[in-house]
């Protein structure tokens, strides 16, 4: 039996971790750490899980510790946000090459400077090129379910890559919502135990992890990493189908909302997609043919599927919650890339919104749709929502 609870996004992910009962969780226990590990630490202290909780002296050490534990054969996790991810970057970048299936929930928050604690996607979007799988969540429920999915995806023998599971800082991480927590035994059965083929504590089968690989083999190892990313596309759907049997929800690469006969759609990630769906409904009631696409799996990016989904529309607005200074914004870049092969490319428009926690309202989304339907678009121009003049 599943149970409905009133939980923050952070608590919802801590519930997923409680059910997965990782062997090791490492965390630097002050800002910018998230309430995810705060809640999880209480599960450890109360004996609800038998995880070895290791408080460390920095985020860099948190990821180092998680890497060591995962290499030893443990299911090891940590969580972070903004500056924390930035500080652990050196080790984060090493994890995919080490082929360690670490799942790390991320509470997406702005990067300094200026100092800001609020939501945007600058932290995770800075980490899209180093080989972590990335899944974005709209609300607390999705963050919970995506964490469960991520564990199976990461540990799959054809993947063996780390996964970041995102939720929007404060908006989701600190907001209380209704969350359906699935039955403990059913979830435990689904996530199972990590059974690595090889691990450092298996002294009968010694192996080397993280060796020196100069021009002789470095390139080849990186090519294998890319093959694992390709496999992740397939495994994501397979594991999602299994999870569907428990949750009753689907796990597509991206969610298509009222797109069937749409003329204009927006592409948008995470919590703002919820607000935007309400805007779509209101415009539909006015007879406007609008819809929405919400990417869930951002790395690997499903280019072919995205192209097929998008090429039938007349106009597409892509809303990014981060910038790629001096280049097109991250989500916009991928949408453009996906459409290059298309015979009938829709008109595109890039929008930036919500940096450093700037609010976004239904009315802002409606204005975007009006602009998309008006045809006043310039695909080489970046437009800004609610930016002060």
């Amino acid at each position: 039996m599943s149970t409905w609870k009133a939980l923050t996004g952070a608590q919802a992910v801590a519930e997923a971790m409680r059910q997965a009962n990782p062997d090791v969780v490492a965390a630097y226990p002050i800002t910018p750490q998230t309430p995810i590990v705060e809640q999880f630490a209480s599960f450890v202290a109360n004996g609800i899980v038998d995880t070895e909780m290791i408080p460390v002296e920095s985020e860099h050490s948190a990821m180092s510790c998680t890497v060591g534990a995962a290499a030893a054969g443990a299911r090891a996790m940590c969580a972070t946000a903004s500056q924390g991810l930035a500080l652990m970057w050196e080790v984060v970048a090493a994890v995919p090459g080490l082929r360690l299936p670490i799942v790390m929930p991320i509470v997406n928050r702005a990067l300094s400077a200026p100092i800001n604690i609020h939501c945007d996607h600058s932290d995770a979007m800075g980490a899209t090129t180093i080989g972590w799988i990335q899944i974005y969540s709209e609300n607390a429920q999705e963050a919970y379910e995506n964490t469960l999915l991520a564990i199976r995806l990461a540990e799959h023998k054809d993947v063996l890559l780390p996964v970041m599971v995102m939720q929007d800082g404060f908006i989701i991480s600190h907001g209380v919502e209704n969350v359906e927590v699935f039955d403990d035994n059913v979830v435990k059965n689904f996530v199972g135990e990590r059974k690595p083929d090889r691990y450092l504590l298996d002294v009968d089968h010694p192996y080397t992890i993280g060796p020196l690989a100069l021009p002789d083999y470095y390139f080849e190892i990186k090519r294998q990493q890319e093959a694992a990313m390709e496999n992740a596309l397939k495994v994501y759907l397979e594991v999602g189908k299994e999870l569907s049997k428990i949750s009753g929800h689907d796990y597509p690469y991206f969610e298509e909302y009222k797109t069937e006969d749409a003329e204009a759609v927006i592409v948008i990630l995470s919590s703002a997609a919820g607000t935007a769906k309400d805007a779509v409904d209101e415009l539909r009631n006015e007879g406007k043919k609008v819809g929405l696409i919400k990417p869930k799996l951002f790395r690997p990016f499903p280019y072919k599927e995205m192209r097929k989904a998008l090429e039938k529309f007349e106009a597409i607005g892509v809303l990014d919650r981060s910038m790629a200074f001096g280049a097109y914004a991250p989500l916009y870049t991928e949408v453009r890339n996906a459409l290059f092969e298309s015979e009938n490319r829709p008109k595109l428009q890039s929008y930036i919104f919500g940096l450093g926690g700037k609010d976004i309202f239904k009315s802002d989304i409606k204005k975007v749709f009006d602009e998309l339907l008006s045809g006043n678009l310039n695909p080489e121009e970046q437009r800004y929502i609610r930016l002060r003049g």
Partner: protein
Amino acid sequence: MKEVYEVRMHARAGQGAKSGSQLLAEAAFKEGKWIQSFPEYGSERRGAPTVSYTRISDKRLRTHEPIVNPDAVLVFDPGLARTIDVTSGLSEESGILIVNTTDSADEVKKQTGFNGKIYTLDATGISLDLLHIDAPNVPMLGALIKVTGIVKLESLEEVIKEHFLEKLGEEKVNKNIEGLKRAYEEVSK
């Protein structure tokens, strides 16, 4: 009742508005509603102005925008109205303003310029009397549910017990529930 009922709470950090918004949401959750409770975060210093929100709905909530047109506004410290437009977006026809003050509703009307329904309650007085601290959150909720009926008194009582029994002990929990009930009786127009 409206399909989505929205409450905004203006307070000072330390007065318990964040917990208040959560207790209210959880009481509605117990009654089978879809809920959201979320605070506006700033630099957290005791005494700084804070805003907390609660949404209660019969259907699944998807929006994640802040509340700009609340159905009810709670003001935990009347001094906030001097510098913050606490009734911003509050309808003078249907909106409800509840202020923690010893002043009368007429005086609050003069202070805020709000021409809608105003209710007052000495929530700080109740809290000082029963708990010897300035924690007006639970009494303010008592006033809110008396005036609006958005959740049942019993649901809030249950949630208060769940949240605080272990942390505060039975005596303080009972005092909180007493404060809730007193506010429920004492709130005035």
